[in-house]
């Protein structure tokens, strides 16, 4: 008797809770007023939505503020919010968006941007210089919104009429234009009364971009094409972003053609995905350089002979083919991405890395190291033994580290791998006092190779100076580059930086970090390909994903 009561009590409680839960879900799936009425009018039966899977990061939260952390994966910067101009790191393309052009004056201390005429916000009001000035004033007023640190460089932002904005710099910093012009512009009408914009939850985003938010629930976000878009209404009428929590179901969904555009890592991509349909395509262009950083404040690593020997011992081809599944290629000694070579490559540098165990050992012996009883090179009783850090769970890098450990053992250098928890790894590489000896990590790309070198070599303000670089000649070259608008001066300054990397090896470039990109061109054509690399093709990159969408046309 009693157990039946318990059973029924339990069952009815569960059902009640579940039903209340689902009604809550219904309440939280807000129908955005502006979109709801438009949806009625735009029931386009025959056009399937383009389904995009940027990254499997789990269920969505209802916040379309451009400052939200999910920004790269839900597309609002690009589809809704736009910057003045977009500078692409992967392909070096420059795409004017809200501005039609810019010019320098006042000895490169004033940047004047001309704004596009006739641009409307998605609620119908006009876009003017007031919105641009407002955006930058917000960054100044609320430093936690200023992610790029623009106001460290700017002294003032002034509107010159409704279609021109003047940016005044404190000191000359030519490359910084890409950050200023790349800042997404927010509507003054929506944000003026919201206080700190980073703390605002935006459920009805208003933007100038090609798409407008149609619906939201924790599983699915949809956008529909903006008929008033200044660039013309996009041919892809509806775009859908389903939420995925892990790679397994994402891989299966791609294989079944339920997702049209993805940016995920898939092992054995031929067997799992590409072979399932002739329309399943992929391309992994180089996104950044994966680097083995050497902490040059550690004794042993401050000796160039040791770094050179290490570089000669590493089998980069094996790393690319085994650790990275053959999806990438070996990096260049100059540290440039393949797309940057034609414009920036300095002459007189080695064209490729070589592997030569014999030469490595000769270099060490010439520098005074002798093999001790365990076969490890040593000098003055100190062995060449270093720890190498890598985050756990990043299986390709974990494989690379164990491959490098074996390879360096062949030339008498002992490597002790340290596989750290992700949080520990990040703490170690970001703390001012570097907590590692060797570490494998990414580099910070940008519109030109300057950004990578500046982040890595600048002793004051380099965001990723992981090798503790402080070379006066290089620092001078960095300042020369950023103070000059002349391409010739920039090229010669960049040559100094490339030569430093290639001949001093403060870090050892390994291979290129891939940009993950899978696409299905059955319904739409116009995708970026190796033959037509017009923009960064990853769906998780802000602004470029909207540029790709504007290039797509239905397959005829």
């Amino acid at each position, binding site marked *: 008797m009693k157990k039946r009561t318990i059973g029924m009590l*339990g069952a009815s409680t569960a059902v009640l809770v579940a039903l209340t839960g689902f009604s809550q879900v219904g309440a939280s799936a807000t129908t955005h007023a502006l979109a709801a009425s438009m949806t009625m009018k735009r029931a386009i039966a025959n056009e399937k939505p383009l389904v995009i899977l940027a990254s499997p990061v789990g269920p969505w939260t209802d916040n379309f503020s451009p400052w939200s952390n999910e920004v790269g994966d839900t597309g609002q910067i690009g589809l809704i919010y736009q910057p003045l101009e977009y500078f692409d790191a992967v392909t070096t393309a420059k795409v004017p968006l809200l501005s039609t052009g810019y010019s320098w004056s006042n000895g490169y201390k004033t940047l004047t941007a001309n704004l596009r005429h006739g641009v409307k916000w998605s609620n119908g009001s006009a876009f003017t210089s007031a919105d641009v000035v407002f955006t930058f004033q917000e960054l100044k007023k609320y430093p936690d919104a200023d992610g790029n640190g623009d106001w460290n460089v700017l002294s003032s932002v002034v509107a010159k009429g409704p279609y021109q904005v003047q940016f005044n710099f404190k000191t000359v910093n030519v490359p910084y234009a890409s950050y200023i012009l790349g800042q997404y512009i927010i509507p003054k009408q929506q944000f003026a009364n919201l206080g700190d914009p980073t703390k605002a939850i935006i459920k009805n985003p208003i933007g100038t971009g090609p798409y407008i938010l149609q619906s939201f629930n924790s599983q699915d976000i949809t956008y529909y094409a903006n008929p008033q878009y200044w660039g013309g209404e996009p041919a892809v009428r509806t775009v859908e972003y389903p939420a995925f929590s892990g790679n397994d179901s994402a891989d299966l969904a791609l294989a079944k053609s339920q997702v049209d555009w993805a940016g995920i890592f898939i092992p054995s991509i031929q067997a799992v995905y590409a072979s399932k349909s002739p329309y399943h395509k992929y391309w992994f262009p180089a996104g950044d350089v994966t680097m083995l950083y050497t902490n040059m404040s550690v004794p042993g690593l401050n000796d160039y002979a040791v770094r050179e020997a290490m570089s000669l011992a590493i089998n980069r081809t094996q790393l690319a083919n085994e650790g990275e599944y053959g999806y990438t290629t070996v990096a260049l000694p100059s540290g440039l991405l393949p797309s940057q070579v034609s414009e920036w490559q300095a002459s007189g540098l080695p064209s490729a890395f070589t592997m030569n165990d014999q030469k490595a050992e000769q270099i060490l012996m010439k520098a005074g190291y002798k093999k001790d009883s365990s076969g490890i090179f040593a000098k003055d009783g100190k062995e060449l033994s270093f720890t190498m850090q890598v985050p756990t769970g990043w299986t390709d890098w974990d494989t690379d580290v164990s491959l490098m450990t074996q390879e360096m053992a062949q030339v008498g250098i002992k490597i002790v791998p340290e596989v750290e928890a992700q949080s520990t790894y990040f703490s170690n590489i970001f703390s001012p006092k570097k907590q590692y000896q060797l570490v494998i990590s990414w580099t910070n790309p940008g519109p030109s190779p300057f950004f990578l070198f500046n982040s890595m070599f600048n002793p004051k303000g380099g965001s990723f100076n992981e090798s503790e670089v402080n070379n006066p000649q290089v620092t001078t070259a960095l300042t020369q580059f950023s103070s000059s608008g002349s391409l010739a001066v920039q090229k010669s300054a960049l040559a100094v930086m490339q030569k430093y990397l290639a001949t001093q090896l403060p870090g050892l470039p390994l291979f290129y970090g891939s940009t993950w990109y899978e696409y299905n061109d059955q319904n739409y054509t116009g995708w970026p390909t190796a033959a037509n690399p017009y923009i960064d093709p990853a769906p998780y990159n802000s602004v470029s994903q909207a540029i790709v969408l504007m290039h797509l046309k239905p397959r005829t």
Partner: protein
Amino acid sequence: MRYYINKVGFLLISIWAAITINFILPRMMPGNPAEIIFGKFQGRLQPSALHAMMIEFGFSNAPWYIQYFQYLGNIITGHFGISYSYFPVHVKTIIEQSLPWTLGAVGIATLLAAIIGTFGGIFIAWIRGSFLEKAIPIVGMFFQATPANWTAFMLLFFFGFDLSIFPMYHGFGSDVTPGFNWPFISSVIDHGVLPVATVFLTGVSGWIVGMRANMINTLGEDYVIFAEAKGVSKARLMFSYTARNALLPQVTSLAIAIGMIVNGSILMETEFSYPGIGFQLNNAVSGEDYPMVQGMFLIIALCVLFANFIVDLLYSRLDPRVRTGGAN
């Protein structure tokens, strides 16, 4: 009466202890949530963004006792704070969004496992000595021992990918609107079959084996042997005499199991992209999202305590010996 007052008093003390431990633990974790989020962008952010984030998260320098009383005040008013990883969305919003799905899927699966498992245990005790009696627990234990994500993936692959009988991901389809309408509810059930099956398979064996052990113990009791000697029918013997008494330890297990429902099933939720709370909890812990971790730990602790409390009360109705302290 004293028994009930004791129980309520114990409940209140346990709640206070849970709340306090919940305050202390996240602050003992190494690392820094701003650095972790910065790291996730892998170089696409400027260094000033890291500084900006730390301001956003309001890294408080107030002394710990002031933080503690602020924390207590917030708990009572239902302010769990703003999540770091989903900044500036409130922890409450995220919990409200995901908890119902977990309660639904994992709750139903747990109850099914308990009910079917218990009847399974009775059935196995009934057919003692036959081949099935040995086979069923082994098959059950196989599913219990294999990791839930493997079971989930096998179901996903065969029924979702190969045979296309059930959907492969999500809690409901993208073509239905959430609310009290039949298309939505049927979509939820359709999407819920495989996740519920996963959690069911990984849990049922425990109930079967537990019930069987209890049954066998109880079957050896004097009163059962006496009843059998007196010629009571096998069905009556199994259900009215043995099962009723063997059920008591299962009720204890049920209390624990109900309390743990709110944990969610992280492995199942990752495989099926099911919008439950286990996934959010896992993310919060690895992202060192203090407010989210605190909010969820608190809910879990409170649910377990309440479930135990209710079952304690029920237990005293089921087993009079508990109320009288075992005296005759």
